[in-house]
């Protein structure tokens, strides 16, 4: 075990060194994005992982999209897709059951990067389990995750082709609505007053890609509550509802309400389908 760990560390060190020496990460050149998280740090194993516990739903989706759902031995409660049900659940993504993870004897755990959960990486280190951090915040992160996960499970070629597929799919979807007039849209979550998605969010990116102008592009935060006056005071064509509560129709006269549910919750390989759905919701029939 120890020798494998030190070998893994050695390889990781070399990989990181070479990556660092090659300069800026090639995929992080988009200046229009303020507030991105740094590229997720990885401790990749030398041999492809065969038993993977994924604490990140989009990583779970990615593994399936790469055609290797067979390596998945553990998922979170939030992986609710029917194909994932037979796989054992280890609880929540940020507070997983360590016992359940250990019992599955994984050789890799994929977890969220960032400061929200400092315990899980520490505990995994204590238990000597390899872990890989991903941070799916924006569309770019989808590609980053595919790359990392693909490398970890030994499918780098499939990862590349999946990434190309998604890029092409998004470009096509975006071009498909390019001729339509831009739609003024507000993306609202539950709350009194309701919360809106602001600039710099994945949602904002997809909306923009699919011909929608987020009326709350000046929000000053990723998500924040907005005064009802703001809804009335801005011209809104479409209100997308992520939750169960809807604002009074009189607050947004003339706007169309569409329920999105959790479709845009996390950036993942399903982003093309999500974008197509958004396109239909925004533009109605003309999107097809």
């Amino acid at each position, binding site marked *: 075990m120890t020798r494998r760990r030190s070998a893994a560390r050695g390889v990781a060190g070399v990989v990181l060194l070479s990556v660092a020496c090659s300069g800026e990460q090639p995929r992080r050149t988009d200046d229009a994005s303020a507030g991105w998280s740094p590229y997720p740090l990885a401790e990749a194993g030398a041999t492809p992982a065969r038993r993977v516990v994924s604490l990140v739903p989009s990583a779970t989706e990615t593994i399936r999209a790469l055609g290797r759902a067979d390596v998945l031995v553990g998922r979170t409660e939030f992986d609710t897709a029917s194909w994932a049900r037979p796989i054992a659940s280890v609880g929540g993504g940020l507070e997983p059951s360590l016992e359940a993870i250990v019992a599955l004897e994984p050789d890799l755990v994929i977890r969220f990067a960032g400061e929200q959960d400092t315990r899980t990486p520490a505990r995994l280190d204590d238990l000597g389990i390899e872990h890989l951090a991903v941070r799916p915040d924006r569309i770019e992160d989808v590609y980053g995750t595919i790359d990392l996960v693909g490398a970890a499970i030994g499918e780098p070629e499939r990862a590349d082709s999946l990434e190309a597929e998604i890029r092409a799919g998004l470009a096509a979807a975006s071009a498909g609505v390019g001729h339509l007039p831009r739609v003024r849209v507000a993306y609202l979550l539950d709350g009194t007053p309701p919360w809106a998605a602001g600039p710099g969010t994945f949602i904002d990116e997809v909306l923009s890609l699919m011909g929608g102008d987020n009326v709350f592009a000046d929000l000053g935060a990723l998500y924040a509550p907005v*005064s009802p006056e703001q809804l009335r005071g801005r011209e809104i064509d479409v209100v997308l509802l992520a939750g169960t509560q809807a604002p009074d129709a009189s607050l947004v006269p003339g706007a169309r309400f569409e329920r999105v549910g959790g479709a845009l919750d996390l950036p993942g390989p399903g982003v093309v389908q999500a974008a197509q759905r958004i396109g239909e919701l925004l533009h109605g029939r003309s999107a097809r």
Partner: protein
Amino acid sequence: MSRWALGVALALALVAAVILGVRFGSVALSTGEVVDVLLGGGGAVERDIVLGLRLPRVLLAGLVGGGLALAGVTFQAVLRNPLAEPYILGISGGASVATVIVLSLGWAAAGSWLMPVAAFVGAVSAIAVVFRVATATGRAMDVRVLLLAGVVVAAFFTACIMFVLAISPARTVQSAVLWMMGSLAAANWTSVATAALYTIPAGTVLMGLARPLNLMAIGDETAHYLGADVEGVKRAALLLAALVTAAGVAVAGVIGFVGLVVPHGVRLLIGSDHRALIPLAFLAGATFLMLADLAARVALAPTEIPVGVVTAFVGVPLFLVLLRRSLAPRSESK
């Protein structure tokens, strides 16, 4: 300070608060536009904002703030405890449990009326449970038992809330926590009417109980000897205060601090005679919450701060100033 001086000052402050609350808001409108609307003109958007959103919201803030202050005064008098405040009998706990359950079951989608109704039912249930416990012995209501029952029931409800939240998805937790922080954002003319329906009659009846409430401050036995129907007053006053609080929680969530500190602030200025304390505390609470809500709406526009945060941030220093002032020797009482 003289009661009348404070009364006039508060009345003026109230009017000023209403004017400011209508003139300013999250969306920047010019004075001309606002005046236009008030005179009957203005564009559709401006009319909707000023008359449909700002005006009812300001009035609701006044009714809820005044109601919470009234409830605070009443609970402090009946429970003979300066630390009493409107949520002390588990009212906020009961309302919160009900709304958290509604949120986690996804019923909120059924209609925006469901949350306030659930909150009210939860609040009233809490009151019923606490009253039952306190009068279980069948003898006169011992307010210490009532207080203890309230604290225990509130703790139980908190545990229920924690449990439901622990097994709920993140979105539900967020909605619930935000609701519990209190907000006047859902104000419309219906909620104003509801709040008025509870607060105004309750305030009127409580004014009639002002002298008996004064007597309660000395003790049940003496109050009885001076002609008060102690048990009747206790029950009526507690019930009215609890209903006003429940109505406030139903339309605006749990807004803390107002019901505890506004009564004390007014007491520090004009003493504990409820004939003056009741109306002045109502005015002070109304003005305070109106101004706090204005700050909540405007400070970080287009986003809103939970109004309970503003009431605490502003209220605490204000109260400390009053407290320091009161510790100077009293030269004359009236």
